[in-house]
């Protein structure tokens, strides 16, 4: 019974945090791309557009859901359900932290730890293809169909380098359970270099991580591989005929896939929730970051550039100082510290996703396939063989 209650609470908590993260990820993406392109991005709803995600959600819910008359109804409604459920389930095996004790109950900061966790993520990713392919086909629209076809061909092709790239760190870690993977990466080499798979001997996986990230871009349909929804040629691709919540489901699926890809990369290659620096330095970075944020807010509050800043910025400073204090108080520290490191690494990877979207143009379709089969796949195979050889030589 206790297991059931704890699991329910954890699931609800993760669900709400995940939903908020997904909504704000979109805000972050719009802001970052706006600044890359020398624009300001969302600015009207709330301070710096911070309430924009909320407004978007309200807009999407209250919009009229149009069902075009020519669609195949059953599959038309099934497609977004498949897409969003497959991408949300994957988060259940991601570990956010180690073992913690709350109100006398010891539990892991992870929904469930499967001994085939990584395979489950890969399986869900491949099942998610059906959502997009079906949406394209059921819409009964040639642009949508082209989008759906492109996506299934692309995802089937890029699954190979993706699986091969993630197989090589598994040779070092010897497990498929995501929690054990992180515990395998504990400790430091030479006293300062963390024992993560990208640094770990005998075969550092830096190349593997780059290969995995490239394939993950294609799997999540992100620029430069977003051919299934290339708006210049296909209107909106596979989701051209979808509106209101059904469109929101695809949107959520895309961001959730991105989050899963970043979280899996963090767990497999970057040591999950483990700190990047040993001992005291690692413990002090988190409060230092937040305290600096608070100090900057306080400074600008005391020298206000605008009238309102005198009142708003000190409040933000207080929030930042409060967060910094969170990392120093002993009972909360054990929960906050892993979350900080996990969030920092995943956030950095998500920033790379957004950064690349703001930088690179879209590939042509034949370039996309040629890149996968003629470059990425052979390199991934060679990398796996080299890793296997090094691991075998090291015994």
């Amino acid at each position, binding site marked *: 019974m206790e297991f059931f209650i704890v699991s329910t609470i954890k699931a609800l908590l993760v669900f709400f945090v995940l939903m908020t993260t997904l909504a704000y990820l979109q805000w972050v993406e719009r802001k970052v791309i706006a600044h890359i392109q020398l624009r300001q991005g969302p600015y009207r709803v709330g301070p710096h557009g911070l309430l924009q995600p909320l407004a978007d959600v309200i807009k999407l819910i209250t919009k009229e859901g149009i069902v075009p008359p020519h669609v195949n109804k059953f*599959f038309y409604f099934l497609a977004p359900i498949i897409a969003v459920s497959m991408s949300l389930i994957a988060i259940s095996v991601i570990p956010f932290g180690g073992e913690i004790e709350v109100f006398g109950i010891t539990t892991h900061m992870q929904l469930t730890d*499967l*001994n*085939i966790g990584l*395979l*489950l993520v*890969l*399986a869900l*990713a*491949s*099942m998610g*293809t*059906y959502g997009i*392919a*079906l949406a*394209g*086909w059921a819409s009964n629209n040639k642009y949508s*169909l082209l989008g*759906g*076809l492109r996506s*299934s*061909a692309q*995802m*089937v092709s890029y*699954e190979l380098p993706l699986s091969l790239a993630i197989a090589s760190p598994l040779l070092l870690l010897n497990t*498929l359970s995501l929690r054990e993977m992180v515990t395998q990466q504990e400790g430091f080499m030479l006293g300062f270099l963390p024992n993560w798979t990208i640094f770990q001997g005998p075969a550092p996986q830096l190349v593997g991580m780059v290969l995995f990230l490239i394939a993950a871009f294609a799997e999540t349909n992100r620029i430069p591989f977003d051919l299934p929804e290339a708006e210049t040629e296909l209107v909106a691709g596979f989701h051209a005929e979808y509106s209101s919540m059904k469109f929101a489901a695809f949107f959520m699926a895309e961001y959730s896939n991105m989050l899963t890809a970043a979280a899996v990369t963090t767990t497999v290659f970057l040591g999950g929730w483990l700190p990047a620096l040993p001992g005291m330095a690692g413990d002090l970075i988190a409060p230092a970051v937040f305290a600096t944020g608070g100090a900057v807010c306080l400074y600008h509050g005391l020298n206000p550039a605008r009238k309102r800043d005198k009142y708003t910025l000190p409040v933000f400073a207080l929030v930042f100082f409060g967060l910094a204090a969170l990392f120093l108080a002993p009972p909360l520290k054990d929960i906050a510290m892993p979350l900080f490191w996990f969030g920092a690494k995943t956030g950095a990877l998500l920033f790379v996703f957004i950064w690349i979207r703001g930088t690179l143009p879209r590939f042509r379709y034949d370039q996309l396939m040629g890149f996968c089969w003629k470059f990425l796949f052979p390199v991934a195979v060679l990398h796996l063989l080299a890793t296997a050889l090094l691991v075998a030589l090291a015994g």
Partner: protein
Amino acid sequence: MDLILFLAFAAIAVICALSVVLQTHPIASALSLVGVMGALSVLYLLLGAEFIAMVQVIVYAGAVMVLFVFVIMLLNADAESPRSTSAMAKALGLPIFLAFAAVLALAVLRLFPDTPLVRFGEFTGGGPADVGMALFTRYLLPFEVISVLILIAIVGAVVLARKEID
């Protein structure tokens, strides 16, 4: 608990399998087949073969069937119109099918007269490490032979496709 799960997913597998045959649209049939594979992978999980269950989903449901769906979509196949079947097929189809099923059931009962029931959680040798050990020690020869066979199939496909292009 495991009996309920087994019955539920066995029922889903059978219903989806019937749907594969009965649907008129090729896409609907293909997706029903995905349903069969998903249900089968849950049955593998119940038997304790976690690795096989996930591989079933990744390879069959996730890769092979995506290609099937891709090809059906590419050919733009429409729903089949029901063709008029011969009177003999209508009259004899079901009895012959039932007779065949009965013979199969009888054969299974004769061959394995008193097999003990499988219990949930009893078998624990289905992890990735166990499967890997089995593949590379006891079943090494069949494993390698199959990989050569697949290589031949790939080369054959390339040769056939080449002819079409030239």
